[in-house]
């Protein structure tokens, strides 16, 4: 049962809503917890055991660390001034071991299910290069759904308890709900405990307002996925799987189409996810903020998959850049070459760690690592050359605040993103380079006709154009901070419902389903 199944939004969610509303306020979070476990069982069957083990480990370690903090506070009240430092250090050391042990326990599952195959393959390749006649068997097994997402959430919970940002939750089912909440378990957003705990345990009754607003958002998600992403799927699949028979022009379009498909699929899923949570009065963080209005790659990543970016910023970027070894290096550079270079080096080391992990997080494969390092290089170059670009613009009297310059930056950033996504989608790194080579050496406008022979005809292009214009319009309004839903809600009932019916009809009539179409599988669920 995916978020785009009729079973999900027309059966599962309404049943949960009814049961949820029947029970009193206090019991409602428990209902959500049970619904989440049922949902997970549908998806991952017996693999739910691994999710439960993770939840149990997080719960117990969290409680242990918080009880140590409590004991520490009591001991500090009675201790003399000179003893305080020792007490703090002793507790911190113990907590550090608990934290590390639990993180390792959880990451071990992630490694086993996601990376063992890849690293066995890499080891076999290295052994072959070294002429060692040993070949390890590659173990293949299905991973528990959402393992990459809930593991990151689990780590954030633990680290935050370790830093005493909050006291670990006492009720087991509440930790279970936080980590397994059915709308977020498959593809995120990666939430933080403090951010969702204010609404997720509230148990507010499903109101007419929340129900309508939630389903509006779900409808938008369905539109993005079924009308746009699924329509582009055959073209993208055919061209990426058999790139050698297509022209450079078709492949360039394929990279653009895949980027649109990915954005529509993932942001559409987020609309369904956030909309579902909204029905229950739960506020989830946004994962996208009009990424294709970004003026550089760094900004793009602060607008695309936002919760993953902020997770890496908080739990990798800052801890690495402010770690003792990095500080030693940068202090030395600062004394010799000044603060700008030392900050650049500090940032570069941390960014390298972030993008190595980011690439690997997306998947176990060389092309994913390349995808990570590609963005690392672009962001680093952006940081290094920013002052030079500013000087050049000043000399050439180019006003960087003008709309024309912004448009140029947006186009440049989009092209760089398309290239990155080409490697991201390519079946292997080798094929990614093969596609790039064809785009650069075999590009001709004469091959324009080929675009109409790969699962998309003129009607499809027309529909895609109109649909994307609708999405662009919504994005522009959002960028201007206009609340479209509030505006619709303020209209008379006949107009309001006409808009809803129009959207439903658009999905039913123009949706790319049935013969001739292959729906996009949940892309981020595989990560």
């Amino acid at each position, binding site marked *: 049962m995916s978020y785009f199944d009729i079973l999900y939004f027309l059966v599962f969610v309404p049943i949960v809503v009814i049961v949820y509303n029947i029970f009193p306020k206090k019991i409602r979070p428990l209902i959500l917890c049970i619904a989440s476990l049922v949902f997970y069982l549908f998806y991952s069957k017996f693999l739910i055991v691994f999710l439960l083990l993770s939840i149990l480990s997080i719960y117990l370690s969290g409680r242990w660390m918080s009880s140590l903090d409590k004991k520490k506070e009591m001991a500090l009240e009675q201790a003399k001034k000179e003893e305080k430092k020792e007490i703090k250090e002793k507790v911190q050391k113990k907590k550090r071991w608990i934290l590390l042990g639990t993180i390792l326990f959880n990451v071990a599952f992630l490694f086993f299910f996601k990376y063992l195959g890849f690293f066995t393959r890499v080891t076999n390749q290295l052994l072959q290069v070294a002429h060692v006649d040993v070949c390890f068997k590659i173990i293949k097994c299905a991973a528990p759904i959402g393992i990459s997402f809930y593991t990151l959430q689990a780590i954030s919970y633990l680290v935050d308890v370790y830093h005493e940002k909050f006291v670990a939750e006492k009720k087991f089912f509440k930790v279970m709900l936080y980590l397994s909440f059915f709308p977020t378990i498959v593809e995120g957003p990666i939430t933080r405990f403090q951010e969702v705990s204010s609404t997720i345990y509230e148990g507010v009754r499903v109101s007419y307002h929340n129900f309508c607003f939630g389903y509006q958002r779900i409808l938008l998600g369905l539109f993005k996925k079924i009308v746009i992403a699924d329509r582009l799927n055959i073209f993208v699949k055919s061209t990426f799987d058999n790139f050698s028979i297509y022209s450079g022009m078709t492949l360039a379009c394929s990279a653009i189409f895949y980027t649109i498909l990915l954005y529509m699929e993932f942001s559409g899923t987020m609309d369904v996810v956030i909309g579902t949570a909204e029905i229950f009065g739960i506020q989830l963080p946004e994962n996208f903020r009009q990424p294709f209005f970004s003026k550089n790659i*760094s900004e793009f990543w602060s607008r695309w998959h936002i919760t993953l970016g902020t997770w890496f910023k908080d739990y990798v970027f800052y801890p690495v850049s*402010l770690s003792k070894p990095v500080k030693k290096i940068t202090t030395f550079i600062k004394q010799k070459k000044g603060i700008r270079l030392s900050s650049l080096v500090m940032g570069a080391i941390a960014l390298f760690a972030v993008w190595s992990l980011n690439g690997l997080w997306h998947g176990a494969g060389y092309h994913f690592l390349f995808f990570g390092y590609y963005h690392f290089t672009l962001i680093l170059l952006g940081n290094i050359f920013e002052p030079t670009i500013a000087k050049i613009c000043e000399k050439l009297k180019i006003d960087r605040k003008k709309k024309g310059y912004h448009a140029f930056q947006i186009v440049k950033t989009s092209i760089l993103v398309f290239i990155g996504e080409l490697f991201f989608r390519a079946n292997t790194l080798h094929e990614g380079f093969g596609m790039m080579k064809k785009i650069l050496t075999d590009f001709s406008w004469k091959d324009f006709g080929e675009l109409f022979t790969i699962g998309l005809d003129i009607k499809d292009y027309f529909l895609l154009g109109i649909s994307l214009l609708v999405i662009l319009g919504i994005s522009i309004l959002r960028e201007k901070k206009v609340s479209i839903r509030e505006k619709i809600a303020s209209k008379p009932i006949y107009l309001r419902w006409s808009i809803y019916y129009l959207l439903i009809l658009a999905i039913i009539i123009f949706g790319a389903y049935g013969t001739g179409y292959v729906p996009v599988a949940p892309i981020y669920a595989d990560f």
Partner: protein
Amino acid sequence: MEKLLEILEELQPDVDFEKCENLVDGRYLDSLTILSLISEIEDAFDVQIPTVEIIPANFNSAKKIWELIERLQEE
């Protein structure tokens, strides 16, 4: 506070640090500038800023940054 304002103005001359109250949320300070700022603050005020303190609420205005420095100095 004056010393802090001097550091901030040197790092980001275009921003009015006395008035601005959304330095992080408004993207006036990016991650790299925050790293430079932390490095400068640690040197100038003899404090250690732990990663757990690097949250927008502590860096959104010069006043908030100053409060953080004072708190860390007391600790």
